[in-house]
């Protein structure tokens, strides 16, 4: 009975090309969900960072507890809570997209809290004192002096986190979001080509990681002191011209 041989393997690589539109759409969904979540969780993360550094124990305690809880929860669990749990408890249904954004925001705002906290603490205290000595209000000092400098420090970490966010969208297949992995699963159930299809999925994640790295490196250049790179030169050209005009007319 035992033939002892191995069945000939037939890799159907053409599937990747045939279903490129579906895979690409899945990727766009993943990017869309994660960008929305990135924007919200950056804002929430900054608020939590400030809360964590608050003089009031109750505020900093709350933020610390939040960070330690949500940093430890896997994305899969988070999205199941938000999508199914919320519906069971409150009878209100989020769309798949909303559930994905909320789940990612809950998790990643805790990471961004820590990233911003360490970035804010890395700014020399003389910066704040200079703002105070000039008679600036606390709000203005934060907005114009501390926040921009902390974001610059945090940028490389935010880039890495964002790549992680995109990867975490792969777990949202479980609530039926048609992202990369869900598309892959669907195709696999038809063709049974797991190696080919999941390799293609991996390739897409890697490709997007390269793109994100490229974008964040340019953001970093633009935020350097002074800004560097062609893109920042282009973006700052009007500002530069007006400054030059003021200098020459003084």
């Amino acid at each position, binding site marked *: 009975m035992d033939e002892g041989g191995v069945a000939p393997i037939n890799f159907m690589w053409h599937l990747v090309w045939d279903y490129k539109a579906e895979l690409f759409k899945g990727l766009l969904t993943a990017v869309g969900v994660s960008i929305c979540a990135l924007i919200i969780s950056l804002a929430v993360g900054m608020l939590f960072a400030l809360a964590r550094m608050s003089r009031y124990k109750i505020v900093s305690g709350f933020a610390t507890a939040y960070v330690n809880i949500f940093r430890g929860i896997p994305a899969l669990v988070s999205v199941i809570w938000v999508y199914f749990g919320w519906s069971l408890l409150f009878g209100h249904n989020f769309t798949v997209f909303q559930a994905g954004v909320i789940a990612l925001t809950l998790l990643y705002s805790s990471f961004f809290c820590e990233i911003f906290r360490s970035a804010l603490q890395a700014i*020399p205290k*003389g910066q704040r004192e200079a703002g105070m000595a000039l008679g600036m209000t606390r709000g203005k000092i934060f907005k*114009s002096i501390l926040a*921009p400098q902390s974001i610059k420090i945090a940028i490389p970490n935010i880039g890495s986190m964002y790549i992680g966010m995109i990867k975490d969208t792969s777990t949202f297949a479980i609530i039926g979001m048609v992202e990369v992995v869900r598309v892959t699963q669907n195709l696999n159930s038809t063709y049974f080509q797991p190696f080919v299809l999941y390799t293609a999925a991996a390739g897409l994640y890697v490709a997007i990681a390269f793109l994100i790295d490229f974008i964040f490196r340019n953001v970093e250049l633009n935020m350097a*002191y002074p800004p560097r790179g062609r893109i920042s030169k282009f973006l700052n050209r009007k500002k530069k011209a007006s400054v*030059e005009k*003021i200098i020459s007319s*003084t």
Partner: protein
Amino acid sequence: MTQSQVLMELTGVRKTFGKVEVLHHIDLKINKGSHAVIFGPSGSGKSTLLRCMNLLEEPDEGSIKFMQDEFGPGDKTNKQVNRKKPIELRRKVGMVFQQFNLFPHLSALDNLALPYRSVRGGSVKDAQERAAHELKKVGLLKLAANYPSELSGGQQQRVAIARALSLDPELMLFDEPTSALDPELVGEVLGVMRDLAESGMTMVVVTHEMNFAREIGDLNVFMEDGNVVATGGADFFESCTNERAKQFIGSVL
């Protein structure tokens, strides 16, 4: 002899850090237009005293009277006195730091324009024009578009002085403004400070540059261990009778 107008008066200022009292009951009067120099060995409380003058350090006890306004904790039983918030004092008092503390993410021009606009309001263009005007006075207009990292230490400190001056302070505080500079860059900063002193600005300077202190100081304050040990006028360096002050002056001059 006309009575000089007192601009700032410190009464009974005490400051502790944790359990250590670093300023013990300091009384000091700064007249309008005078140039006070505070000197003394390190750890004597010079910088802390200076930082109490714009409430970057809040004294634990004592009062700071600036023009008509009262600041600091003062006499807590006297509710008659309307004590003002630190920000109101800071808006009338400029400060220059040892480490310059320019904003690294802004050009020299915006280092002046941003605080100016945030305190005074108005348009970005007006603030930048004002900034350019102030930078011209310290001879740095040509470098206005540069970032602090593109400037030498001396240039950075001149920008910092211009930044403080752009807000029209009544009093300028200098916290060891040349201590972080390479020796060959000290001169340009002292030059700007000398011009400022000649223009009649009231100044309080904490410094180790004793020759400069001797040149501009018309109120010399020697501090040691959190006390003002000796004070004197322009002839302090020659006529001082306090042994400890004489010894210190002898060792640094």
